[in-house]
């Protein structure tokens, strides 16, 4: 219990350091485009194929499960609503978050942990740089921008997957499926999902970097830090999902 408290304290200090470094984003010299693009490519662009594939498959699976239930009551067309809303509001952002946790979160922890082992963190500090700003902010910006974009792609792939099932199994005409999709889905559902994925991006990055900074400074510590980052990210993502879903239900997103 005491350990949990001291960890929370540490995490708060870390958050403070990151927040304190935010003004760096508004200074020309410390705006780090190079790192930003590096991470945007790593976490965003390179994840695109796997995101599209997994979200498509998820749409298919959801479509099949939905089709079975819908056929029982003869309301096949509502399958469109089921797929559309669950993909847009939940599954798209969640799938992207899980992929990002595995790809980016653990990589951040390992990267920073290795820097700690090599005394690069000390070197940064003696050069008067702020590791929190230098190492966290570019990752944070890259993630906050790329995860929502990935979610949009994942959403499209998921809906497409559902459509494949609807058209082939339930024999809904493509045009009807499409019209219904455009008809029922609204911007609010999309926005809600995108806001969620931006929040996931922040949590995954912070958890990854935090676990890197607090890793024990030896080779095993790097591995443990990466594992811890994954567990912590998934935990935070699920908790925040619950909280946000509750909040959004009040404002009708």
């Amino acid at each position, binding site marked *: 219990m005491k350990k949990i408290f001291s960890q929370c304290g540490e995490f708060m200090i870390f958050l403070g350091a990151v927040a304190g470094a935010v003004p760096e984003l508004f200074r020309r010299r410390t705006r780090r485009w190079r790192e930003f693009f*590096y991470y945007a490519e790593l976490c965003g662009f390179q994840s695109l194929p796997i995101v599209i594939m997994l979200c498509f498959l998820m749409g298919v699976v959801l479509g099949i499960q939905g089709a079975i239930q819908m056929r029982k009551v003869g309301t096949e067309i509502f399958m469109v609503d089921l797929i559309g809303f669950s993909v847009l509001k939940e599954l798209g952002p969640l799938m992207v978050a899980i992929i990002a946790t595995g790809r980016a979160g653990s990589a951040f922890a390992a990267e920073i942990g*290795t*820097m700690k082992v090599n*005394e690069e963190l000390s*070197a940064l500090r*003696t050069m008067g740089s702020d590791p929190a700003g230098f190492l966290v902010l570019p990752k944070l910006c890259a993630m906050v921008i790329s995860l929502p974009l990935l979610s949009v792609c994942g959403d499209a792939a998921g809906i497409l997957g559902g459509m494949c099932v609807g058209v082939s199994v339930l024999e809904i005409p493509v045009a009807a499926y499409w019209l219904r999709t455009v008809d029922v889905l609204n911007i609010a559902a999309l926005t809600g999902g995108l806001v969620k994925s931006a929040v996931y991006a922040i949590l995954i990055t912070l958890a990854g970097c935090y676990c890197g900074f607090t890793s024990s400074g030896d080779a095993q510590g790097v591995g443990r830090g990466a594992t811890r980052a994954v567990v912590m990210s998934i935990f935070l993502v699920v908790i925040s999902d619950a909280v946000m879903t509750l909040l959004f239900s009040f404002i009708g997103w």
Partner: protein
Amino acid sequence: MDVPQKNIIPAVEVRDLAIGYGDRIVLEKLNFTIDPGEVVCIMGGSGCGKSTLLKHIIGLYQPLKGDIFIRGESMVNAAGERKKALMRSLGVTYQGGALFGWMSVAENVEFPLREYTELTAAERRERVQEKLALVGLEKFGSFMPAELSGGMCKRAGLARALALEPDLLFFDEPSAGLDPLSSAGLDKLILDLRERTGATIVVVTHELDSVFTIGDRALMLDRERRTLVADGKPAELIKEYAGSWVGDFLSRNGTANR
């Protein structure tokens, strides 16, 4: 030299310092000053706290007790931007080089210049080339740190520490892992540096040869007594402490590894 020079501000002054990790004291009751332009070697057995002492002096850790003054300004009480500026004014190399893995060697050396100077790209490139040549790595600027040997990483780290041309330099075992020739070259480099720039240089080292070549002074740390046990000219320390482990250590007799 014996005339008291009150008006000179010491480059480094350590007062009643106690350092350690958590509640474990590694070294205590440390008192010494380092004058501008001196080359001082810190020596002692492995694990006696040489690196720890260095990291405290350069402001990475807060000491348990006591104070550290850099050019008369307290490192312990400095905070915020002031502390950053104070830390930045020191050149530091680490035992393993501590190069940034995602940047090439040249970019590593350029990093402090890009961050803290108004030099143009061409001026920076020139300065980088100059510093790399100084450590004998002029052909390796485009290499990534992972493609260098351990000794080369160290030398690249040295070039990076020199980039901003600080007047106060701290080297943690710069010659460990280098062959005797490069290690002698490093000694020459250190003497050159002092000659040309008048920089104050603090070196943690195990190499007795270099202590006698470059060291104006040697500070001996004792692991058992957890403090500074000898401070003076290396050649004089041998005589003064003949018979004790300090003398043995310096003259390489017997079980010097304490």
